[in-house]
C-alpha cells in the first residue's frame, strides 16, 4: 500500500493515517471526492444557512453594512437615501433591480457609488435620449430580425470588456439573499431571449456556471471544521491537494543514450583510461637465467673480491694517475691556489654527506693537502648538520697523511654548522663575523691573531667549496658572486655535480676559478699538487671495480639482448602458428 507524504513537512506517513504523525497536518482531504456541487458546498456558496446568515447580517445591521457606502460619499453630500431614513428594512428588491438595470439610475443609491473620482462613469441617460447605445441601434438597423439582447450578445463577442462587466449575471447578488431563501435564478424578465452562444474558450472557463447557484435547491451540508494541524478549529479550510499527498512511483524514463558504435567505442576507451589511472601497472615477471637474488649476490661478491684484491695484493694491478691535461678546470684550480696570499685565511666549506665521503674525502682532501703544504690558515664552515664532524675527520686524515699538524684556533677554525639554508648562507657571506662569531670549541675565532684580518667575505684569500649536492654548489656560487668577492672560488665536487658547475667555469668572465671533479680529477690534481698522495689507494680499486662493472654490463647486455631477441622470435613463431 502506498504511503502518504505529508504536504506540510514532507515526511512519509502510513496510508491509513488521517493526519501527519509528525506535524499533525491533515493528510486526507475533508472531502475526498469533490464534485462541482461539493465544491460549491465547500465554498459555502449554496449553503442556505450560510446564505441566511449573510442575508441576516446584511438586514440586521444595514446601517453598519452600508457604512462603506457613506464613506465613499463626500461629507457635504452625505445625504441619506430614502430607504436609509425610515425604519423600513433594506429594500433588497430595489438594490437588486439597480444592479440588474443600472441604466434606470433611480434605485435610490447614491449616484457616486461607483465613482471613486478616477473612474469615468457612464453618463446617466435622460428621458430624451434613447436607452440603447448608438452601436446597438446601428446593429438593429443592420439586423432587424434580432432582438436587442441577441444583438448585444453578438456585440459581446467582439468586445470582451463588456462581457467582463456583465451586471446581469445572477451570481453577483447571492450574498444579499434573505435568510431562508433558496438560491434561485433571478426571474428572467427576458424569457423571450434565447441563450447566448458563448465562445468555446468562455465555455471552458466553466467556473461561472459551476459556481453559480443552480435552479434547483441544493441541500446544505454541515460546515467542516478543521480538527487537526495548525489550522485546527477553522471552518471551511480548503484541504490540501490530494494528489500531492500520495507518493507516487516516478515515471520510468528511458536513459539509454542514442549513440553510435563509434561513439561507444570511444567512451569505452575513455572509461578504461580513467580506470587504469588509479591502478599500478603490473610489471610482468621475466625469466632470468638465474634467480634474481643469486645474480645480485654474485655481482656483489665480484665487486667485493675485486676491491679486496687491490688491498691484499697492492702491486697486482697498478693504475696510472690520469693526466691533468684531461682536466683543465682542475689545472686552473691548482694555479689559483698556488697564487693565494698566505696572509689571509682560506674559507673551506665542507658540504657533503657521510655516505659520499669515500669520493668527497679524496676530492676535498687533495685540495686540503695542497693548502697544508702551503701552510695556509683555514676557516672551515658547513651548511650540513654533520659537516663539522666531516671537517674534523678530514683535517685529521690530512694531518696524518702529510704529517703536518694543524692546531685549532691557530692554524684553522671550525665554525661549524650554519643554520637557515639559503638565508643562513646569505647572512654568513654578508657578515661572517656577526653570523658565526664562535668556533665549535667555543673560542672567539675572530679575535685570534690568525683570523683577525677577516672583516668580510672578501677578506679570505680563497674560497673552496666541497660538495656533492648540485643545489648547494649552485647556492654557494650565486651568493658569493653576488658580492663580487675578489677571492678565487674553487669547487671540489663529485663527478655527478661537475656538469652543473661547469657552466660557471666556462662563463665569460668565469664565475668560478677552478673545478676538481670527482675521484679522477682529484687524482690528477694530487699528482701535481701533493705527490705522492693517498688517493691512489682509493683510485685503484675504483678503477678496477669500474672496469669490472663495464665488463659485467657488457656481458649481461649481450646475453640478455640475445635472449630477448630469441624469445621474441619464438613468440612470433608461436603467433604465426596460432594464426594458421
Amino acid at each position, binding site marked *: 500500500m502506498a504511503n502518504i507524504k505529508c504536504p506540510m513537512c514532507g515526511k512519509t506517513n502510513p496510508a491509513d493515517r488521517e493526519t501527519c504523525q509528525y506535524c499533525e497536518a491533515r493528510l486526507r482531504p475533508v472531502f475526498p471526492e469533490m464534485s462541482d456541487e461539493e465544491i460549491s458546498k465547500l465554498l459555502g456558496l449554496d449553503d442556505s444557512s450560510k446564505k441566511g446568515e449573510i442575508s441576516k447580517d446584511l438586514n440586521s445591521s444595514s446601517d453598519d453594512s452600508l457604512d462603506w457606502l457613506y464613506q465613499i460619499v463626500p461629507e457635504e453630500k452625505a445625504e441619506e437615501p430614502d430607504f436609509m431614513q425610515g425604519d423600513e428594512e433594506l429594500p433588497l428588491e430595489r438594490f437588486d433591480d439597480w444592479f440588474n438595470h443600472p441604466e434606470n439610475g433611480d434605485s435610490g443609491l447614491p449616484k457616486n457609488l461607483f465613482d471613486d473620482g478616477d473612474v469615468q462613469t457612464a453618463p446617466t441617460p435622460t428621458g430624451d435620449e434613447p436607452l440603447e447605445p448608438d452601436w446597438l441601434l446601428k446593429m438593429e438597423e443592420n439586423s432587424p430580425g434580432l432582438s436587442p439582447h441577441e444583438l448585444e450578445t453578438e456585440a459581446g463577442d467582439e468586445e470582451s470588456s463588456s462581457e467582463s462587466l456583465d451586471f446581469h449575471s445572477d451570481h453577483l447578488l447571492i450574498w444579499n439573499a434573505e435568510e431562508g431563501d433558496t438560491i434561485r435564478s433571478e426571474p428572467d424578465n427576458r424569457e423571450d431571449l434565447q441563450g447566448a452562444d458563448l465562445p468555446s474558450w468562455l465555455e471552458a472557463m466553466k467556473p461561472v456556471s459551476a459556481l453559480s447557484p443552480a435552479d434547483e435547491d441544493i441541500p446544505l451540508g454541515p460546515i467542516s471544521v478543521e480538527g487537526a494541524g495548525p489550522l485546527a478549529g477553522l471552518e471551511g479550510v480548503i484541504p490540501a491537494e490530494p494528489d500531492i499527498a500520495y507518493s507516487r512511483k516516478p515515471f520510468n524514463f528511458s536513459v539509454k543514450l542514442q549513440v553510435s558504435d563509434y561513439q561507444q567505442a570511444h567512451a569505452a576507451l575513455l572509461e578504461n583510461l580513467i580506470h587504469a589511472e588509479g591502478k599500478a601497472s603490473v610489471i610482468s615477471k621475466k625469466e632470468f637465467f638465474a634467480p634474481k637474488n643469486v*645474480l645480485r649476490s654474485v655481482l656483489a661478491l665480484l665487486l667485493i673480491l675485486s676491491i679486496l684484491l687491490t688491498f691484499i695484493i697492492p702491486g697486482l694491478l697498478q*693504475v696510472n694517475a690520469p693526466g691533468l691535461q684531461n682536466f683543465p678546470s682542475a689545472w686552473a684550480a691548482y694555479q689559483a691556489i698556488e697564487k693565494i696570499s698566505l696572509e689571509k685565511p682560506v674559507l673551506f666549506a665542507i658540504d657533503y654527506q657521510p655516505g659520499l665521503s669515500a669520493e668527497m674525502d679524496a676530492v676535498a682532501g687533495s685540495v686540503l693537502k695542497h693548502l697544508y703544504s702551503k701552510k695556509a690558515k683555514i676557516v672551515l664552515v658547513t651548511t650540513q648538520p654533520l659537516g663539522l664532524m666531516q671537517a674534523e675527520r678530514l683535517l685529521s686524515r690530512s694531518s696524518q697523511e702529510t704529517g703536518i699538524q694543524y692546531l685549532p684556533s691557530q692554524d684553522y677554525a671550525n665554525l661549524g654548522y650554519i643554520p637557515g639554508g639559503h638565508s643562513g648562507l646569505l647572512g654568513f657571506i654578508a657578515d661572517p663575523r656577526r653570523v658565526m662569531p664562535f668556533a665549535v670549541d667555543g673560542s672567539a675565532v675572530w679575535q685570534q691573531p690568525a683570523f683577525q684580518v677577516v672583516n668580510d667575505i672578501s677578506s679570505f684569500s680563497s674560497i673552496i667549496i666541497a660538495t656533492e649536492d648540485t643545489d648547494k654548489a649552485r647556492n654557494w656560487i650565486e651568493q658569493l658572486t653576488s658580492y663580487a668577492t675578489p677571492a678565487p672560488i674553487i669547487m671540489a665536487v663529485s663527478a655527478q655535480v661537475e656538469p652543473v658547475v661547469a657552466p660557471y667555469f666556462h662563463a665569460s668572465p668565469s664565475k668560478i676559478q677552478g673545478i676538481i671533479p670527482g675521484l679522477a680529477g682529484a687524482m690528477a690534481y694530487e699528482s701535481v699538487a701533493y705527490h705522492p698522495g693517498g688517493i691512489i689507494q682509493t683510485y685503484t680499486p675504483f678503477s678496477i671495480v669500474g672496469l669490472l662493472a663495464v665488463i659485467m*654490463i657488457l656481458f649481461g647486455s649481450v646475453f640478455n639482448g640475445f635472449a630477448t631477441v630469441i624469445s621474441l622470435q619464438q613468440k612470433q613463431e608461436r603467433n604465426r602458428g596460432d594464426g594458421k
Partner: protein
Amino acid sequence: MKLSLKVTLYTAIAILAGLIVLVGYFIDTGFITDLRLQLVNWAILMAAIAVIVGVINLLRVHWNRLKTRQNGWFYSLVMVVCLIGTLIIVAYFGPASKPSMFLFNYVLSPLEMSLMGLLAVVLLMAGVTLLRKRLSGYTLLFLGVVVLIILGSITIPGIEIQALQDVKNWIAQTWAGAGARGILLGIALGTMATGIRILLGVERPYSD
C-alpha cells in the same frame, strides 16, 4: 577572495622583508644593509629553532609509538635511546670531541656508506639486466653512454686510451653541459617568477 586582517598583515610583512633584502643586493648603504642583515639573522635564528622543534617532534612521535606499543615499537625504542644518548654525549663532550667523533666515524659514516654500496650493487644489477627488460634503441644508447663515462672516469690497468678520456669529456662538457645550462636557466626563471609572485602578494605560502 576576502583577505582577513591577519593575512594582510602577514603579506605586508613578507613583502616588506623581501623588498628590503632584495634592495640590499643593489643598494649598499648603511641603513639598508644593517636592516637586511638583521632580517637575515632573524631568519637564521628561526631556522635553528625549527631544527630543535623538529627534533623534539621526532622524539615525541616515537615516544608515543613506544608508549602505545604500536607496530615497530622496538625500532622506536632504538631510535629514542640513540637520539638521547648521542645528544648527551655531543652536548657534554662537544661536537669535535673524541667520543663524538667515534660515533661519527664508526657508526654514522659506515652506515651511510653501506647504503651507498648497496646502491652501487643495485645499479649494476639494473645495468646488467636492462636489455632483458627493455630492448630498444634508447636502451642501447643509454647503456653505451654509461659504459663510455665509466671507462673515461677510470684508468684501465696497463692501458691508457686517450680517446676514452676525450669522449667522456665531450659527453660531459657538451651534452651534459648543455642540459645543465638549460636546467640552470629554468631554475633561474622559476626563482624569479616565484620571487615576484611573493613580492606582489600573489603567492602567500606563509599565510596558509
